[in-house]
C-alpha cells in the first residue's frame, strides 16, 4: 500500500507541476494581444481601457456578426465598438459592460441585442455561464467572481477556483493545437477573426450554398437571464447610458413571442421581408456578410429616424 500511494503521489505531483507550468505559459499567451487564439476577442474586450465611444454593441454571436461598425459609423456619423461575442448571454454581457466601464471607458449608448435565445441561455448556448472563458483563473476579477457567486450553485462553481482544475476542465482553450495556432498567427491578431480597432467580425467564409430552414421555437424565459437583463439596464442607468435594444435577423419562428414582455419591448425588429432571404444567412440564426450589410443599413436608418442619431451630440463631439 505504501509503495502504491507513494508512486501514485509522485505521478500526480509530476502532473501538477507540468500542468501549472503549462497554465502559466497559456496565461502569458492569452494576455498578450500579439497572438490570435480562439478566445482572443474576450481578452481584447477586457483590454479596452480609457477609451470613449458614442455607442457600443453588446450581445452574442448574433450581435457580433449582424452589425458592421464601420458602415454604421458612416451612416449615423458616430464612433462605435462591437463587443458582441459568440455564445454570450446576458450574464456575460453584464460582465462585459461592467468591466468595460470599470476600465475607465465611456460610452453614450448601448445597442443591446435581445432575442429569445438570450432569454434561454441554458438551452441556446452550450453552457449557461461561460465561466471558463475568463482566464486567468488565479487572478479572477472581483466582478466575475461576484457573478459566479450569484449565478452558479456552490457545488457547481467550485472547479472554477482551483486554477489547475479549471485549466484541466476547460482545456479546449489551451489545447496544444490551439496554442500552436496562436503562435503561428503571431502578429495577425488584428486581421484574423475580428478587427481589433472596432471589434467588427471578419467573415472568412462565403455564404453557404445550401437550403437553410429555420425551426419553430417555443420560448421559455429563464429567470436568471431576466435577472441579468435587468442588471444591464440598471448599470446603464447608473452611468447615464441609453439602451436601445434590437433583435438580429433569424430564420427561426417563435410561437409565443408576443407573450414575453421583454421581447415585446424590443426597440427594433426588422420588418423588411428581404432580410429573411436564406441567401443572406450562413445558418438559420446568423446572417452572412451580405445579410449584415443590409441589416446594418436598416438599423442605421432606424436610429436616424427614431432617435435622430445624426443630430445627437455625443460624448466625443462634446469633447471636440
Amino acid at each position, binding site marked *: 500500500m505504501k509503495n*502504491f500511494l507513494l508512486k501514485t503521489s509522485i505521478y500526480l505531483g509530476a502532473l501538477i507541476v507540468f500542468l501549472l507550468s503549462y497554465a502559466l505559459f497559456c496565461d502569458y499567451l492569452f494576455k498578450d494581444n500579439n497572438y490570435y487564439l480562439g478566445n482572443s476577442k474576450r481578452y481584447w474586450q477586457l483590454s479596452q481601457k480609457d477609451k470613449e465611444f458614442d455607442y457600443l454593441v453588446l450581445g452574442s454571436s448574433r450581435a457580433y456578426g449582424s452589425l458592421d461598425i464601420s458602415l454604421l459609423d458612416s451612416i449615423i456619423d458616430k464612433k462605435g465598438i462591437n463587443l458582441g461575442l459568440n455564445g454570450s448571454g446576458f450574464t456575460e454581457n453584464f460582465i462585459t459592460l461592467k468591466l468595460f466601464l470599470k476600465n475607465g471607458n465611456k460610452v453614450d449608448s448601448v445597442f443591446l441585442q435581445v432575442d429569445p435565445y438570450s432569454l434561454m441561455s441554458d438551452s441556446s448556448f*452550450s*453552457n449557461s455561464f461561460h465561466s471558463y472563458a475568463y482566464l486567468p483563473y488565479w487572478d479572477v476579477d472581483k466582478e466575475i467572481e461576484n457573478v459566479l457567486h450569484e449565478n452558479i450553485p456552490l457545488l457547481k462553481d467550485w472547479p472554477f477556483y482551483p486554477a489547475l482544475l479549471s485549466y484541466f476542465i476547460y482545456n479546449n482553450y489551451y489545447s496544444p493545437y490551439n496554442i500552436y495556432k496562436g503562435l503561428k498567427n503571431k502578429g495577425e491578431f488584428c486581421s484574423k477573426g475580428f478587427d481589433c480597432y472596432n471589434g467588427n467580425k471578419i467573415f472568412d467564409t462565403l455564404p453557404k450554398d445550401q437550403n437553410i430552414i429555420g425551426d419553430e421555437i417555443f420560448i421559455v424565459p429563464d429567470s436568471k437571464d431576466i435577472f441579468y437583463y435587468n442588471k444591464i439596464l440598471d448599470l446603464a442607468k447608473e452611468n447615464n447610458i441609453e439602451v436601445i435594444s434590437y433583435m438580429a435577423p433569424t430564420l427561426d419562428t417563435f410561437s409565443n413571442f408576443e407573450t414575453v414582455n421583454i421581447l415585446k419591448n424590443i426597440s427594433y425588429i426588422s420588418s423588411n421581408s428581404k432580410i429573411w432571404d436564406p441567401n443572406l444567412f450562413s445558418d438559420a440564426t446568423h446572417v452572412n456578410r451580405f445579410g449584415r450589410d443590409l441589416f446594418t443599413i436598416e438599423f442605421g436608418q432606424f436610429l436616424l429616424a427614431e432617435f435622430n442619431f445624426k443630430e445627437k451630440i455625443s460624448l466625443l463631439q462634446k469633447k471636440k
Partner: protein
Amino acid sequence: MLFNSLDFAIFLPIVFILYWFVFNKSLKGQNLLVAAASYVFYGWWDWRFLSLILFSTLIDYFVGVSLGKTEAPTKRKILLWVSILVNLGFLGFFKYYNFFLDNFKSAFSIAGYELNANSLNIILPVGISFYTFQTLSYTIDVYKNRLEPTKNFISFAAFVSFFPQLVAGPIERASNLLPQFFKPRKFEYSQGVDGMRQILWGLFKKVVIADNCAVYANHIFENSADMSGSTLVLGAIFFTFQIYGDFSGYSDIAIGTARLFGFNLMQNFAFPYFSRDIAEFWRRWHISLSTWFRDYLYIPLGGSRGGTWMKVRNTFIIFIVSGFWHGANWTFIVWGALNAVYFLPLLLTNKNRQNMEVVAEDSYLPSFKEFGQMSLTFFLTVIAWVFFRSETLKDASLYIIYASKLETFDLNFILTHSKTLFLISIFIIFEWLSRHNQNPFIIANDFLRKGAYSIIILLIIFYGLYVNPNSFIYFQF
C-alpha cells in the same frame, strides 16, 4: 454520479481511504462501506430510485433464503417466479410500458378500434436493466442449486449495488462476484496498479474517443438529411467508435475501480472491432450480456441442439431479445435481427467458432485475408449501428440510402475532422498493440510503459471533454 466527473474524482479516494485505512480490519465493515458508498453513488443521480434497488435487493434476498430452506419443487418454482415477475415487472413498467401501449394502440387503430389509454411520463431509473439481470442471475443460480443462498444481507446488498458496475455493468454472475464479498481482502500492489491502468485506459476511451466522436456523430445523425454521402459514412464510423469508447470505457473504469477494492470483475470487451466474423464480434462485445443470454436464455431454449429450425429460432430469439434489452424501440429490435441475419450463415455452416484466438496472434500485422475479414465485419457492424443510433426505422433507412450516394462523396471531411480522425488512429494503434491484454500498459519495458502513460495522460488532458460531462450511452439502457 458519472465516472468522468469531478464528483467521482473526490468520491473514489474518500471511499478508498475509508476502505483500506478505517474499515480494513473488518470484512463486515468493508462490505457495509461498499453498500453505503454504492447507495450514495446511485443516489447522487436520483435518490428516489434507491428504494427500487432496496426493494429488489430485499425480494431477492428473501427468495434466496427461502429457496435454501425448501426442497419442494412447486414451492421453489413459485419463489423463482416471484423473483422473475418482480424484477421483470419493474423493468417492464419503467422501460417498456409506453412502447407496448403505443404499439397496441397502433395495432388496434389499424383494426378500426381506438384504445383510450395515455402514455405515462416515466423516468427510466439508471442501470435498471443491469442490476435486474444481475439479481436474476442470483435467484436462477440458487434455484438451480448452482449457488448457495446467502444469509448475509449486507454482503448481498453490497453485491447487488456494487457501485463500480451498478449502472452499466459488467453484468456480473452471482457465482463470480458474491463469493468475493465473503473472502478477506488484502491490498495488493499489483492489483492496485492494474486497477489504475485500467481506469486510465477507460477514461481515455470515454473522454477522448467517445466524447469527441459524439460531437460530430450527434450533429451528423441529427442533420442527416443535409449531409453528403461521405459525411454520413463518417458519422456512422464516428458513432461506431463513440459507442465502443463509451461503453467499453465505462467497463474498464468499473473493472479498474473494483480492482482498487480487491474485486475482480469479468472482462466485458475484448477488442471487438478486430473480429474476423460476426460470431467472433459477439464473443468480444458486451461479453457479460452475451454470456448472460447464452446461459439463462439460449441454453434453456435448447441452444444449438436440435434441428436447423430450432437453431434458427433460438438465434433470432436471442438476438432480438438482446436488441429489445437495449431499449423500447423498433430500431433496437431491427438491430438485433440484423445481427441474427449476419450470424445465421456462420451458424448453419458450422463456422461460428472458427476464430477463437486473437487475430494475428504471432505476428505484428494481420494477413491480407484477416484484414479483409476484419474490414467486412467492421462494415457490417457499422451498418447495424446506424439502426441502433437512429430515432426511427425510417431515419435509419434514409440514412443508409443517402450514405450510399457516391456522387455526393468528397474528401473535405478529412480536413474538417482531422483532429478526431487523428485521435481514432492513435486509439486503433494502441488497441492493436495491446490486443493480447486488457489494457495497453502491460509492457515489460519500463521506458516504453512510461511513454505510453505519458501519451495517454496528455491526450486525456488536452483532448478530453469535461465541460458538462457527457453521460454514458448505456445509462439509458
